[in-house]
């Protein structure tokens, strides 16, 4: 049911975006940041990044694999502190229980992804699989990456 609402929201946003595009055919990809939380384009871009880099282990439904790869639905790691979450993508993760459950596979670092890609995929993950949380912006990823290097 929740998934339906997310879908509905996405469709509504997409429709809104389409209408906006019809009105302003010039501004194709709003280089000007999305003021409102979750534009459909970002979710779609995030899904593409997810499919190419995350789906094998975390699965199409974000449910992960019991005992091996953690789920992404409603975990404190996904819904909680964004800097920590960005850090997981940048550095990978291992030997870390998630909400009390052990997972044995190593998550490799994904620091080849751009700030935009990481922002997109985390925004997608935080608003899919039953999740509803604020977007992650490229600026937040950039800041986390800079802090990460220190």
């Amino acid at each position, binding site marked *: 049911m929740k998934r339906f609402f997310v879908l509905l929201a996405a469709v509504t946003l997409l429709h809104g975006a389409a209408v906006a595009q019809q009105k302003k055919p010039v501004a194709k990809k709003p280089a000007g940041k999305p003021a409102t939380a979750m534009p459909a384009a970002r979710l779609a871009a995030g899904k593409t990044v997810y499919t190419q880099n995350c789906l*094998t282990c975390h699965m199409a439904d974000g449910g992960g694999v019991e005992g091996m790869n953690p789920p992404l639905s409603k975990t404190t790691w996904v819904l909680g502190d964004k800097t920590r979450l960005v850090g997981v993508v940048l550095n990978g993760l291992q030997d870390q229980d998630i909400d009390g459950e052990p997972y044995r596979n190593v*998550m490799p670092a994904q620091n080849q992804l751009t700030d935009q890609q990481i922002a997109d995929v985390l925004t997608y993950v935080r608003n899919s699989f039953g999740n509803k949380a604020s977007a992650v912006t490229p600026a937040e990823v950039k800041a986390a990456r800079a802090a990460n290097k220190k």
Partner: protein
Amino acid sequence: MNRTLPRYLLLSAAVAGSLSLLALRPSAPAAVVADPNNAGLKLPAGFGALVVAETGGRARHLVVTPKGILYVKLNRPDKSGRGILKLTPNVGGKVTVAGGFGNYGGTGISLKDGYLYASSDEDVYRYKLDGNGEVTNPTAPEKIVTGLINRRQHESKSIVLDNAGNLYVNIGAYSNSCQEQDRQKGSMGQPNCPILEQAGGIWQFRADKPNQGYAEGTRYATGLRNVVGLDWNSQANQLFVMQHGRDQLHDIFPELYDTKQSAELPAECLYALTKGANAGWPYVYYDGQQRKLMQAPEYGGDGKKEATGNYLQPAAAYPAHTAPNALLFYTGTMFPEKYRHGAFIAFHGSWNRAPEPQKGYYVVFQPFKDGKPSGNWEVFADNFAGTPEKAAAGRPDHKPCGLAQGPDGSLYVSDDSKGTIYRIVYTQKKS
């Protein structure tokens, strides 16, 4: 009450029934009654199945004693701190949890010469059994093997014994393909893979000597990424193992493998081992379609280059990523002749075939002749997943993990997802 009463009546009827049976034929075994829908399983004609127990635990491997007691190894201890469950025969061929011991999680469990062996993810213990198959020292087992490496990935220590006083223990590689950075896109293989010194193979120990570590053991076979299912074949007098093949060829080398190839490569392989055998992980993998050993991309392979080096060829191959978690050579007489001395293999099911449909969640039969695979394998027990859709999504109801043969020749299957224990029987009269 309206629930308890019929059950009570049923029980009394069953007891009365078995009493009258006993009166007629004192040695007659209790009748085994298949569930009306064969416990949801799809089986060959003439077979039936029943759920004998719902343990609620992560039931990994299991054994059945000559008197029908089940010992089930749990991957983590239950709420009462029991890592091994004891289940005793009940009516209709079912069993009831009657106790437990061993406050450690793990996978391996095996019976041999009056002892019950069980493993944690680091150690192997053994318990003395009395004439009734009851453990006599549940709180004070002998520690036979100790200090095996456990770095979470491929941590389970499956065990089996031969007929000459040796214990074989799998020590899985704590890695996918021995990359410099495990599972990292484009990361190459570590030269002369150091993991193989203490893992990625089968180690042999004495079955009766306490506190053996790596120094006392022998690396019996190497180049095996992770083995969960293994069994001793008494006809060939040889150890057979099922390897879990490497993951994620496309994720790591997208320019060499597409997602379809990645889903179908490499095959899950059965190996017939002899001392000193090397199956080639991480340097090679087996392409089940071309039936060739290929060079791994981490070690100079490109998806087309055949393996260099002298490595053991698999004895048989099965669909990729389906995770063979148990191997059992069937020696019973309950099933028809074709099954005798053949192998049952429990496939736990895949996770890394996406975006292709997931696969597995079944028990396969591999015919054998004179101690060697002979003829094509077939799916023997299917639909542990519940529906084809649940299987394809990788969200099965049950995941077959352990196999055991009962004294009457029944085949027991454990599920480590919900803890269901199945029993498969041949119900048709043999002519």
